[in-house]
């Protein structure tokens, strides 16, 4: 599969169809990979694809806006590309999506497959320009059981749970910086006049940061879990991103990155929207 991938990219680079090919290469040991930026055909030999390729490379699209890019995507990363194109952050003509068939990735922290891979319907990528390899989708469909389970808790228990999580948070902003849809050049967390978020790090400030970030990515977050896997202290952010996906589905029947024509839920309205308990 690596060979097939390398040949395809070699071809794209020699034909000058792309300036950059973004894929994966081996990192510090055999259990880790890191994003690789390849510009010449000779350099493609370092590109690989295996079960440790957990990063969502769609992240780099907004950073290399002016270039033509070939992007290696797992099935679950393709919605990111669509979402960014939809938000006019990148033009679809400038990106060649190479779908890599994936049998599920391993979280380098736990060595186990994350939940998204166990119930994955896009192991064989859908909507890519080229596809490499074949894979079989999971037998179980994507579900929101874990979020629904968490929702059953009382608000006091939820508060305690998140307080414990955000006590750990060191506000390194890894979650924000690896998020493909968190591309604002001037994030609210960095605004100093007026200041929204104090530099002082404590559980309350951290919680406010995460609440506002989650609210900002609602209807745009494709639930790719990049933030969850990036967290150096293992805060289960997937519980939040999945909640966003669940709400978008249940309240507005919307799925980010799925339908290119659907309007994002918060940027449109319908005169017949339900009143949702407004007095």
């Amino acid at each position, binding site marked *: 599969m690596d060979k097939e991938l390398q040949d395809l990219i070699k071809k794209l680079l020699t034909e000058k169809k792309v300036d950059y090919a973004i894929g994966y290469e081996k990192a510090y040991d055999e259990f880790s990979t890191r994003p690789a930026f390849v510009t010449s055909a000779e350099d493609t030999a370092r590109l690989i694809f295996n079960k440790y390729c957990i990063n969502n490379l769609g992240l780099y699209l907004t950073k290399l806006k002016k270039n033509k890019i070939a992007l290696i995507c797992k099935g679950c990363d393709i919605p990111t590309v669509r979402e960014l194109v939809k938000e006019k952050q990148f033009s679809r003509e400038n990106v060649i999506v190479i779908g890599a068939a994936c049998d599920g990735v391993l979280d380098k922290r736990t060595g186990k497959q994350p939940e998204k891979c166990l119930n994955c319907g896009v192991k064989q990528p859908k909507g890519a320009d080229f596809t490499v390899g074949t894979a079989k989708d999971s037998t179980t469909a994507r579900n929101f059981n874990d979020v629904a389970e968490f929702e059953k808790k009382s608000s006091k228990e939820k508060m*305690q749970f998140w307080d414990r999580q955000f006590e750990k948070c060191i506000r390194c902003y890894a979650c924000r910086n690896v998020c493909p849809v968190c591309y604002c050049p001037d994030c609210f967390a960095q605004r100093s006049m007026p200041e929204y978020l104090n530099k002082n790090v404590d559980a309350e400030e951290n919680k406010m940061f995460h609440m506002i970030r989650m609210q900002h990515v609602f209807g745009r977050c494709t639930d790719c879990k990049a933030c969850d896997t990036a967290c150096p202290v293992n805060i289960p952010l997937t519980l939040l991103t999945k909640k966003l996906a669940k709400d978008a589905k249940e309240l507005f029947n919307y799925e980010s990155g799925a339908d290119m024509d659907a309007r994002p839920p*918060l940027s449109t309205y319908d005169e017949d929207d339900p009143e949702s*308990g407004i007095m």
Partner: protein
Amino acid sequence: MDNKVPQLNIVGFLCNWCSYAGADMTGLGRNTYPSNIKVIRIPCTGRMDPMMIIEAFHNGADGVLVSGCHPGDCHYTEGNYYWRRRYPHLKSLLEHFGIDKRRFHASWVSASEGKKFAEVVKKVTAEVKDWRDNG
């Protein structure tokens, strides 16, 4: 104003065109409501940045009420329709973070509905008090 519940802070974001005038009307009509609510005037509920609601809770508000014109009556034609979509999502997200659903409310109050505004504030205060006392 009377029936104030001690030590309970509710932030009211009222739209300039309907609810703020409605709150005025409450006083003119000699209707009473708990003075726990601290009113902040906003241009339109469509302008209501969710960040400010989150910040209000962060800074210690026990409850938040956002009130605007009835659907179809918006001064800017469509602002409150956007709010009507934002509200259920925000409420659900805040609840997920552990902010009880009794603490965050929205209402439609027109400029002539002074009586309704008093009712809304009474109801919101009772709910927030219920949350504080019974957890």
